[in-house]
């Protein structure tokens, strides 16, 4: 089973790339693969290359990877409940990352940890550094995960579903936090989410994933205003909107069908069973990601034109 097949991504310094798609589309696997965190039985990276700062990651040794993880590339995971170790103090958990990658002693590491907590706007950081994860709220724990990821000033920050496990108000706070951090620290970020609202606020470029493939890749404006792939278009249209012009309410448009079975994916284009624009070739040939306009890539045999 190929969880991820044919993904081409590029992130430049200071850029935020949003990776959107439904649950199960392979977004998290992509992120884990970048850091080579996919458990190797049963997973395996079959083909391709991952280049970080001009170097090939796939050939690096275990020790070299340990150095890159946390300091070069860092990831903040999606469920703040389960991704923090319940028996360790959160100050220690942040300081651990620092001590692994920087030459500081215990006390200095803890001081830096407190600074990180302040950076992610956790109140009373100095007092709370010796508390345990269960003593924080969900939103606070998400901030802690981000703090851990940022603690060594990584070149690339991967944020996996930062808002999924939170209520709507906290979601807004986290998005604001990421936006502030982005500005303050000139972060390069890979933002993984299925929430289009989050991504349009934070991302410069967007890659749309479906069933393990990247189906469209462009800057955020083009994706939202001029989507070329039917899936992207359907995603954008499925966002509930408050229509003040028509004065009434619109029906929510859902995408027909469901996410394909990854063990036996459909022949040809994986989206074609659900696509309202499909033509004959869609079920036989698999479209590749091609650049149809400057910087705008689509993987579709019959992309949408002129909007």
């Amino acid at each position, binding site marked *: 089973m190929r969880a991820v097949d044919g993904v081409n991504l590029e992130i430049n310094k200071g850029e935020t790339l949003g990776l959107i798609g439904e649950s199960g589309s392979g977004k998290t696997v992509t992120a884990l693969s970048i850091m080579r965190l996919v458990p190797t039985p049963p997973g395996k990276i079959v083909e391709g290359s991952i280049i970080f700062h001009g170097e090939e990651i796939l050939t690096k040794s275990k020790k070299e990877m*340990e150095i890159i993880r*946390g300091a070069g590339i860092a990831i903040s995971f999606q469920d703040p409940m389960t991704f923090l*170790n319940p*028996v360790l103090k959160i100050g220690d958990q942040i300081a*651990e990352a620092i001590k692994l*990658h920087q030459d500081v002693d215990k006390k200095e590491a803890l001081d830096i940890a407190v600074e990180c907590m302040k950076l992610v706007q956790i109140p009373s950081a100095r007092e709370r550094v010796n508390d345990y994860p*269960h003593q924080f709220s969900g939103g606070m724990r998400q901030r802690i995960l981000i703090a851990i990821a940022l603690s060594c000033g990584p070149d690339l920050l991967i944020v996996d579903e930062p808002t999924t496990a939170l209520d709507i108000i906290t979601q807004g706070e986290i998005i604001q936090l990421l936006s502030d951090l982005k500005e303050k620290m000139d972060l390069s970020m890979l933002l993984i989410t299925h929430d289009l609202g989050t991504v349009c606020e934070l991302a410069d470029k967007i890659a749309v994933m479906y069933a393990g493939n990247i189906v469209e890749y462009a800057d955020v404006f083009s994706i939202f205003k001029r989507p070329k792939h039917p899936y992207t278009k359907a995603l954008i249209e499925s966002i509930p909107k408050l229509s003040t012009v028509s004065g009434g309410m619109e029906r929510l448009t859902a995408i027909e069908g469901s996410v394909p079975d990854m063990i036996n994916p459909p022949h040809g284009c994986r989206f074609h069973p659900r696509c309202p624009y499909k033509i004959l070739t869609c079920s036989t040939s698999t479209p590749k990601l091609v650049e149809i306009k400057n910087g705008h890539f689509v993987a579709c045999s019959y992309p949408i034109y002129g909007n």
Partner: protein
Amino acid sequence: MRKKIINNLLQAVPVIFGVIIINFFLIHLAPGDPAVMLAGEEAPAEYLDLIRDKMGFNKPMHIQLFIYLKQVLSGDLGYSYYSNRPVLEIIIERLPNTLLLLGTAFVFSILIGIFLGIIASKKPYSLTDNITSFLSLILYSLPTFWLGMIFILIFSVHLKIFPTSGIMSVKGGSSIFDRLLHMFLPSSVITIYWLALYTRITRGSMLETLKKDYILTAWAKGCSERIVLFKHALRNALLPIITVIGLRFRVLFTGSVTLETVFAWPGIGRLMYDAIIDMDYPILMGGFIIVSIIVVLANLVTDIIYTILDPRIRFK
């Protein structure tokens, strides 16, 4: 946390009462004259009357129960008519020997078991893993006293490395080395038996813990395998292991009865065996009460340790 500890203490008290009450009912429900049971078959009639008076056998049941409770709680567990000494005194005399045996086995089996369990969890379902799992299962199914006999046969009778029984040599005096030699075989048998269990439990607990999300976070920070296993996984995996250790205390003493018989080790277990042969009921009942109390206390300590180690309980 203090509240929880006090809570645990309070829960232990009714259990101890319950044990004493069970004993009381056993004395009165058993066939035969309770006075004879407590004083022995050979006791003269005056002594029997004395017992009946002291225990209030002619009074109503609930008064008798109260008298008995008061007696036991003040340390009077009756007299062993075989050795003519207070039961409590005899038991306290023999207890350290058993504790010595069980204590060393306890410590070693936990340390080695957890270590082996961690190693086993690194390569689950491999051939070595399956073989060791199966071997543990076999070891755990064999009767410990039989294993003791086989050990004696091999190491004492045939290879003549270790003495066959007892706690010290008649001639050798009480040198530490002599003691250690005598202790080695019985202690090893118990250690091996429990080792099998703790290895399996640790392996299972570690495997469960290693699947958790926060382990992925640790890897993502760049932790080495050693740090992930020992700092992140083990700290969490230990909690269910400690629970199991606590549950096993009562069986620890159980094994001592048969094993001490095989090795002629002068501990509580052997005392019970002698009491069976001599039909010395006060010792049997006294032993039951004392060992129950010890197990209750051991469980209490385990609960407290668990509370200390799990911050989720410590800081509510």
